[in-house]
């Protein structure tokens, strides 16, 4: 059984702010706002208790997140019976952006919505600015063109290897890798011991991003955080040596060490495959910790970030442009705005927010101190987040400002890379296709 010590997490505002501020400087977006003072208490705005209803949409791909938000909604509506929240979120294998776009097309864009591709909807005039009286709730608020649109639900978490301790022991692995080559040696040992080294939920296209971005972060963004903007300006190419190296490493890993059924495995099946011993490791984020424990409470597993070839650890972790946002249409209705502000305030109240963070194993974003229990895996995640010597970068589609990529490019790119492995394609040829598609996307978006 996993040793689950009670780890009381006191988020020190100054330390966390310093960390996040340090992370935010590689983006061409305007400088991030930081808050260090004691947060102004935002009073619930609903005073007249008039009945009000607003719709809500958020990404439900992770069952723990879905459960945690539903519990928050129930608690909020119990405390505010005059507010009705119409939760229109749906679970599908499509990407969250596809789902949201479809909702918009049928005139059902949620009043309060979790946005991950904020720029798309801001450019389309679908989103209102986050009310200023909510800003003080957070330590850090990313800005797009100098404006704040999102109440960040949680910090951008690092991804890492969740490994079966038994599988490691059976394969004679006694030490965690210090370099990427040592990591590959571990994969070979696992394979030789008769277990499939890695489970990947490739049926859900967003799951592909975990691995792909590991390689991009370590080979491309570690050297040049502004690579995306250079690609847009056509001064960088997917055929650049660093990018080709990243994709070659990806192809090698997937061709040799990934479970055979990866393309038809959904993200929500990966925990079962791991705990049943069909595979030894899963590369994902801390939200999976709860799912793995739920799948088998006795399963013993650890978590670590994979170092790069030089032995340096660089993880996903810069604050992104995502979180709760108010739709422009709903923002015209004062009653709805009051109700949505009340919900956001409620969501981030330490007593409520701590439950969410504990369920999802997420990283807090609030200025107020939050205390919650974590296990050994989450402690490692939090160590990575708080260790200022560990560099933080972002996934290809999470960069914003000048570094934003065409929003339609991500899924296409991930699918192309699936095909690259399937067809045993030539990396340079596929990267040339990526250049063409990227430029077409940029051109289409400019027209």
């Amino acid at each position, binding site marked *: 059984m996993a040793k689950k010590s009670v780890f009381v997490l006191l988020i020190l505002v100054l330390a966390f702010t310093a960390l996040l501020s340090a992370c935010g400087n590689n983006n061409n977006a305007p400088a991030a706002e930081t808050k260090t003072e004691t947060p102004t208490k935002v009073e619930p705005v609903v005073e007249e208790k008039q009945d009000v209803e607003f719709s809500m949409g958020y990404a439900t791909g992770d069952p723990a997140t879905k459960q945690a938000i539903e519990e928050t909604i129930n608690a909020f509506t119990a405390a505010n019976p005059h507010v009705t929240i119409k939760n229109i979120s749906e679970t599908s*294998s*499509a*990407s969250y*952006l*596809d789902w949201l*776009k*479809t909702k*918009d*097309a049928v005139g059902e864009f949620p009043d309060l919505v979790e946005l991950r591709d904020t720029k*798309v*909807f801001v*450019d*389309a*005039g*679908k989103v209102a600015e986050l009310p200023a009286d909510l800003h003080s709730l957070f330590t850090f608020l990313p800005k797009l063109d100098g404006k704040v649109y999102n109440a960040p639900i949680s910090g951008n978490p690092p991804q890492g290897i969740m490994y079966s301790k038994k599988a490691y022991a059976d394969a004679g692995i006694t030490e965690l890798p210090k370099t990427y080559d040592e990591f590959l040696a571990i994969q070979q040992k696992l394979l030789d011991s008769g277990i499939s080294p890695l489970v990947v939920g*490739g*049926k859900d*296209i967003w799951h592909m991003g975990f691995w792909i971005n590991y390689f991009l972060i370590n080979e491309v963004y570690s050297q040049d955080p502004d690579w995306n903007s250079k690609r847009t300006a056509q001064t960088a190419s997917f055929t650049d040596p660093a990018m080709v190296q990243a994709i070659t490493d990806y192809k090698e890993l997937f061709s040799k060490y990934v*479970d*055979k*059924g*990866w*393309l*038809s*495995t959904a993200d929500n*099946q990966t925990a*079962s*495959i791991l705990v049943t011993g*069909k595979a030894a490791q899963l590369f994902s984020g801390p939200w999976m910790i709860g799912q793995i424990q739920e799948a088998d409470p006795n399963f013993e597993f650890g978590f670590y970030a994979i170092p790069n070839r030089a032995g340096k650890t660089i993880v996903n972790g810069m604050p992104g442009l995502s979180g709760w946002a108010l739709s422009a249409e709903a923002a015209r209705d004062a009653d709805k705005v009051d109700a949505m502000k009340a919900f956001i305030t409620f969501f981030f109240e330490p007593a409520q927010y701590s439950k969410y963070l504990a369920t999802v194993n997420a990283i807090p974003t609030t200025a107020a101190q939050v205390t919650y229990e974590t296990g050994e895996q989450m402690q490692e995640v939090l160590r990575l987040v708080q260790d200022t010597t560990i560099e933080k970068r972002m996934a290809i589609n999470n960069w914003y400002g000048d570094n934003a990529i065409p*929003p*339609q490019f991500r*899924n*296409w790119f991930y*699918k*192309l890379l*699936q*095909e690259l492995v*399937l*067809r045993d394609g030539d990396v340079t040829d596929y990267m040339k296709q990526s250049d063409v598609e990227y430029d*077409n*996307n940029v051109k*289409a*978006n400019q*027209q």
Partner: protein
Amino acid sequence: MMATQTIKKKWWTNYAIWFILPSLVFYTAFVIAPTLSSVYLSLTSWDGISPDIRFIGLDNFREIMNSKRVHNAFYNTMIFATVLVLLENVVALGLAMLVDQVRWFRNLFRSIFYFPVLMSGIVMGFIWVIILNYNFGVINQLLDMMGLSSKKVDWLGDPDTALISIILATVWKSSGFFMIIYLAGLQGIPKEMVEAAEIDGASRWQQFRHITFPLLAGAFTVCVMLSMISSLKIFDQIAVMTDGGPGFETETLTYIIYKVAFGELRQGFGTALGIVLFLITLVISFIQIKLLRRREVEM
């Protein structure tokens, strides 16, 4: 007398207009107008959500001509349109003949074969995803139990088997529907003709070739037409079973329209693809009707 008739005719004509008008308005608003507007949208770079709609001429159609991904989707659509039509009709006709000849539990068999038709494509897709799953699916579990683990196949993740898996699942779902149409046709064949053929010494195959099949010409035309149209429109199964993957391997024209229009924020390009699909369907249906009608007359 003539004047009275003219007045009556005019009155009737005017009267009819008032009956037609509501439907005409409705049809124009919800079918004609969107169709015409889609022609315009296909010439734009509209992203589907932005208020800016820019005219780009025939750029979308040029891209369609040059896109490998669209060509692959077109190829898959044609595969569906031929293999699926063939399999659905062969299986449906076979089932109809079996059910027509069985003496006991006839209604039970009809119900069993028709049952999958009642399921939505989404539900059917999920069932087959579970059956075909690499790690937990029934088929691979059976292979495991028989000691054939090395023969396990990633049915929906392997480009060589993904398309055929979707086709077989679709045949399973829709054959019952076509079976009912063939069954109705079979029951309309005069027994005397079959009996006369038997007395004349015709074999089973000869009876089928020269009596049953020609007299099913009407049902055959309807089934092939419906099957062809549904094959060209296939969407649910792909969305649930493969999401067009692995990679872009199982995308069809209808699916790529959805993906580019909604997922890739290219409503203009998606609409242009929609028009191409419309023209393809129109041409195929026209040829099919011509051929099958001629065949019906000849028979």
